[in-house]
């Protein structure tokens, strides 16, 4: 196998897949850092985002307009879910919220199945053959996926490092009691967390739908790789989630070279187990933002 083949059929798909995982993993890691629980409805929230974008696209909006609109709508829905279901569990043991998020996942999936049905859908009919740049076979949508991830991470990092509210989020993640004592409004910080997590989660769903098809189970299948990515990078670290996502995506695609194809789905699981055994804090020593 030559270098180009390795790049075209293993590395590039791995990076695109990894970007999609990373967008979801950022949300998972942010929610864990600030609210301290694992959000199991993240995959199905991504499905909902993908289908909201489908509705907008079918109503005539170009995807470039539909994407930000979807992110905003899904962020609103995420806030609504938090206010409606998670808020009053906040003082109870966290495991109760984790379990309730599993219930939310089933509810969101049921809504998607009732509204849009269970058939596979696409944003546009037909197939798109990749462009060839210096022997590399890349589709526009794959470039968009990578570019969006990079832009999202840069903006998010700047926001967390420089802005007042970004600093407040980091303070909450570092020590919630101290943050409350110094006058940080925790309700606003929580809302902000859901806006960012919900928006990025919707984007990961839209990009998954754009690169493959939209199915009602699409997000659920992404949940394990997204968690593996967050744990691999170090829970609570945004750049860790990105790194973790890319590594998990690449590992899944490259695993086919050495393992039979049916074990591809087990890669994320293997990475998750291995990291928890060897280095539970993750590659970047996660814990706080």
């Amino acid at each position, binding site marked *: 196998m030559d270098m180009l083949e390795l790049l075209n059929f293993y590395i590039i798909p791995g990076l695109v897949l990894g970007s999609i995982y990373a967008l979801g993993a950022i949300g998972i890691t942010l929610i864990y850092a600030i609210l301290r629980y694992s959000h199991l409805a993240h995959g199905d929230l991504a499905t909902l985002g993908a289908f909201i974008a489908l509705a907008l696209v079918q109503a005539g909006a170009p995807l470039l307009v539909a994407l930000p609109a979807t992110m905003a709508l899904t962020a609103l829905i995420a806030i609504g879910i938090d206010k409606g279901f998670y808020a009053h569990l906040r003082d109870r043991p966290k495991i109760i919220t984790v379990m309730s998020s599993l219930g939310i996942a089933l509810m969101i999936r049921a809504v998607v199945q009732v509204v849009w049905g269970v058939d596979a859908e696409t944003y546009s009919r037909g197939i798109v053959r990749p462009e060839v740049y210096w022997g590399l076979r890349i589709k526009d949508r794959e470039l968009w996926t990578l570019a969006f991830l990079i832009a999202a991470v840069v903006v998010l990092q700047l926001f967390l490092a420089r802005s007042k509210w970004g600093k407040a989020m980091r303070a909450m993640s570092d020590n919630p009691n101290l943050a409350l004592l110094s006058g940080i409004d925790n309700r606003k910080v929580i809302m902000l967390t859901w806006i960012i997590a919900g928006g990025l989660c919707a984007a990961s769903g839209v990009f998954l739908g754009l690169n493959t098809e939209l199915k009602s189970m699409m997000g659920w299948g992404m949940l394990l790789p997204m968690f593996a990515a967050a744990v691999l990078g170090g829970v609570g670290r945004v750049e860790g989630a990105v790194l973790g996502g890319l590594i998990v995506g690449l590992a899944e695609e490259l695993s086919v070279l050495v393992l039979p*194809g049916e074990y591809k789905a087990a890669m994320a699981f293997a990475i998750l187990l291995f990291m928890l055994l060897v280095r539970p804090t993750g590659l970047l020593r996660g814990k706080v933002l």
Partner: protein
Amino acid sequence: MKTKALALVGGLMAATALAAAPAKADVKIGLLGGVSGPIAAMAPAMIDAAQLAFAQVNEQGGILAGEKLVGVVGDSACSPQGGTDAATKAVNIEGVVAVVGPHCSGAVLAAAGSVTVPAGIAMVTPSGTSPEISGLDDKDTVFRTVPSDDYQGRALARTLKEQGYAKVAVAYLNNDYGTGLANAFKAEFEAQGGEVAGFAAHEADKASYRSNLADLSSGGADTLVIFDYGDGTGLTILRQALENGFFEKFVGGDGMKSDALFKELGSDNLTTFVASSPVGEKSDALDVFNEAFKAAGGDPDAIFVNTSYDAAFLLALAVEKAGGDKAGVAAALREVSNGEGEAILPGEWAKAKALIAEGKAIDYKGAAGDHNFDANGDVPGTYALFKIEGDAFTVVSEMK
């Protein structure tokens, strides 16, 4: 005085018995199908076809002593867990006398092994095609109105070889359906002198299969044979293979014969795609069913509708024959369709009911075939190779 009291009590009892008769419970048959999951697009038509059989029974005097026959729909989700859950609910809570379904082989194996065989409930699957089902230790309670994939895999291999496909790669879904079909295909294709240059299973619902496809194409095959579902992962694989130009020609099993292919990929891109699928042999019974299903608003060309209808109608006949006794349904199923006795066509419920009442033998001639079950509860089948033309599947050739 005593006699009067006795007469009064007797009268009261008689009145209670009379009053109770019309309120006798409906007879329920479970309709387990993959309502959600990878074959969700096929399931509604299959369930409608089975319901048509029950509607005909109810129109023509009902079952047993004029009771209503009701189909209890359950979602087997095309997975072993879903199949077990749905079968448990149907058997233990709804109290069904027999089960039509589940639709997917994995669900059939799980539901039979853990629920219906221990309970002694007869099960007829209209679409569970895995060769594994033949070998199930089922105390003769599991039947199917669809032929085993062992036949389909071998017929497809022979047809492809005849039509000049020499070197193929096989991608199959890692479940009972995909594995069974792929193994039967590979054995026969190699026996016929063809070369299988790539043979790999894959898991469902991954976002990218390009590395799998690159691996498969590295053997130098120009044809990809996909044993998967056209509403599920099969669609993703076909799309990525087309987009990246991995193979020139594509072949699918019956699971790939889904409208989703041309709806999502466009028929212009699918000129080199063919799929095999069981077809009803041309018969009066098939025409009768097609007319009735069309009149009920269904599409008689949809996949597995005739087998679904036959499964439901056969079970209704068996329940009638067994007098409503759950334990006797499986044995009665063989009696109503063993090639001996007065022929019964689809929809001829009143005639069948009268003959059963007289104690005469009947033989159901189904829309999808005669259904004379062999020792494993299997039926032989006929297949055709389909291609996509415009926005529909059309027959290329019969498969032998």
